């Protein structure tokens, strides 16, 4: 019985954090989010050398062959750094689809490129979770048509996985009939696009892969939850540090019990959330029967905790917390996007009830 991170996982966490501290401090993050692509390409390639981009790519394809728990550890560190890097979309969702549904040739073509950080694939899967107005794909003889919304990390992607019913299609970015247009969200650290299709012809199509799609969705939810967790850690640390520095009424505000209790409430919510993220990720790796429920509840829970923590942390900062100048807003907004992606809390809880036969 050992419920916790291994030494290697602790080291992985430390390595990614240190890398981000040095290479992607918030001053650099601010530059990157103003750029056209919104991604620190150089940083991404450097991280790829550390095995981050190809964390889930099998070793046979030049990746690190890590577990989803490892990926969750990475995502927490990236969330902590508000890193403008395409980890969730390309390194988790797209990679897992390549691993689970693609044939050998397609895997050989893409997986090494993803692991090296030179190529990126984004995934349009939002409509499998909840189809909203004006979205959805149809397939006809001529190819795929329609709109895929909230394609995470889709800016400058080389290809797209597009989900239509129980089928998954891989379409090149340059394919005729495909347009990808920015979908500006509150979160500038990760870019979503809207993919429009008009008789676009996929490079490869895999049919009847619904079970794999659901498993990939579970993984995406866990990793988004892990990203939120990292943001919560950062927001709490910033709050404690700010409260220690800031003086009012002749004393640091950290001596006011109302402020201390706001921080205690954040910590009390965050710590079991960390345990839940680890548990869900481990279940995805090793306990397949439990994984769907845990992934679903984990994402719903972290979204709620994330919202509370971001709101509370902003209040600890007072007026400065409401400014653009204060870095805290990056995590506030990043959580704001993660919460909505792949199912908001209410949708996920309804799903959790269905999974258990309660509804």
């Amino acid at each position: 019985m050992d419920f916790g991170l291994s030494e290697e996982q602790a080291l992985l966490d430390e390595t990614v954090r240190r890398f981000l501290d040095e290479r992607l401090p918030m001053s650099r993050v601010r530059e990157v989010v103003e750029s056209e692509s919104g991604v620190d390409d150089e940083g991404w390639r450097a991280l790829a050398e550390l095995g981050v981009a190809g964390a889930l790519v099998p070793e046979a394809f030049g990746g690190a062959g890590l577990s989803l728990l490892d990926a969750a550890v990475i995502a927490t560190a990236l969330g902590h750094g508000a890193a403008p890097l395409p980890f969730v979309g390309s390194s988790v969702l797209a990679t897992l689809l390549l691993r689970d549904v693609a044939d050998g040739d397609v895997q050989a073509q893409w997986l090494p490129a993803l692991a090296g950080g030179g190529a990126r694939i984004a995934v349009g899967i939002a409509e499998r979770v909840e189809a909203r107005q004006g979205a959805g794909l149809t397939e006809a003889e001529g190819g795929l048509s329609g709109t895929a919304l909230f394609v995470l990390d889709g800016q400058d992607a080389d290809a797209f996985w597009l989900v239509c019913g129980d089928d998954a299609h891989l379409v090149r970015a340059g394919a005729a009939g495909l347009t990808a247009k920015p979908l500006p969200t509150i979160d500038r650290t990760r870019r979503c696009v809207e993919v429009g299709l008009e008789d676009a012809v996929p490079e490869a199509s895999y049919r009847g892969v619904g079970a794999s799609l659901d498993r990939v969705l579970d993984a995406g939810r866990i990793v988004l939850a892990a990203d939120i967790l990292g943001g919560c850690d950062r927001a709490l640390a910033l709050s404690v540090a700010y409260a220690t520095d800031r003086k009012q009424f002749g004393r640091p505000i950290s001596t006011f019990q109302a402020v201390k209790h706001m921080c205690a409430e954040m910590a009390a919510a965050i710590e079991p959330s960390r345990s839940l993220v680890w548990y869900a990720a481990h279940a995805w790796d090793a306990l397949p029967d439990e994984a769907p429920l845990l992934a679903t509840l984990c994402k719903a829970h972290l979204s709620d905790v994330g919202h509370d923590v971001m709101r509370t942390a902003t209040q600890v900062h007072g007026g400065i917390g409401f400014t653009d100048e204060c870095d805290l807003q990056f995590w506030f907004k990043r959580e704001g996007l993660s919460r909505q992606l792949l199912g908001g809390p209410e949708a996920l809880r309804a799903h959790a009830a269905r999974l258990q036969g309660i509804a």
Partner: protein
Amino acid sequence: MDLAYGPEYETFRAELRAFLETHGSEAPGRRGEIASVGSAEVTAWQAKLIDRGYAARTIPKEYGGAGHEADPLIATILSEEFGRTHVSKGVGGQGIDMLVPTLLEHGTEAQKKRYVPATVRGEMVWCQGYSEPGAGSDLAALQTSGRVEGDHLFINGQKIWTSTAQFSQMMFALIRTEPDAPKHEGISYVLVPMDTPGIDVRPLKTMTGHAEFNEVFFDEVKVPLANIVGRRGEGWKIANTTLRHERNMLGSSATSESLYEGALQVLREERIDGGRAVDSPVLRDRLMKLQAETIANKAHAMRLLTSRLRGENAGVAGLVSKLNGCQLNHDLAGLAIDAMGEGGALYRGSERARDGGRWQFQYMFQLGLIIGGGTAQIQKNIISERGLGMPREPKAVKAAAEATPGSDT
């Protein structure tokens, strides 16, 4: 990450399961049920459990226990299996959970011989005399005094909120024996026989309708100095070592799991306009929200167990269970009540009350636990100060020398 316990533990679990299946029906009512404390039924069951190493497991044989090494995994398996089957895990309460570990650590040989075996057998029931009308969260402000005369202490004053005092043979109490010493240094840890002349126990009815705790008055209560545990004036330190034992037990995720299962059943069975309560999207959403918290707390308990096994300090993660667990339990009871609509207000005395009014009882009882054992606010002080390194309040700094007060039961 590896959630398997390993073969020797699974053997232990299998044996325990077989035992519970064969003998579970002989167990007395639920643990802590007031009527059964100290009864022959309880002591017989307790003897059977000790014999097999399922109770008093780590207490040395010479003091009536089963004499095994401490093993957190075994302890977890025991609480999981007894919890799962709702079978009494034997004598519980403040005597065996708090007093016995204190005596084993700090008591004299004579004190251990005299009190531990009888307590372990379930024949000697204890109450905890810590809180006073003027000393709750600020426990070290206690005023009940012990005047030393010859070989005896003469105790005067009042304790309050003393659970089980009405049927206890003994009290372990914090008494101010050195009136001139600083706040934390003038207190002694004293064992008081409850039949000593001058003790007056007056039940205090709680909001649940039961007399769950008491006021205890002391008027020239004469107790031998030999009943002091440790040295005179060191009671605060001694009490704090046991509080550490206790804090590990509070906010147990097993209680939340069982309340969740119960609430789920209520939502499945209750009918609203002919439909099931669980088909109400709003109630179902609340249920799933609390399920997520229940699972998070369970995972958290596994993580803390691992920290202990690895010998690591869990840091702030180790300080949040009481706050989270008690609040969650209260919310679970609240949901079950809301799912029953008006019927949720029914209580004992109504034939229509579901489970004999269990859920209203829980809703009140769990609120008591949010307050007892260190209030939610005191927990937040502990989390922010010890966990996050934030400063103590300026005025409290001097008074609270070495311990955050108020973490008693």
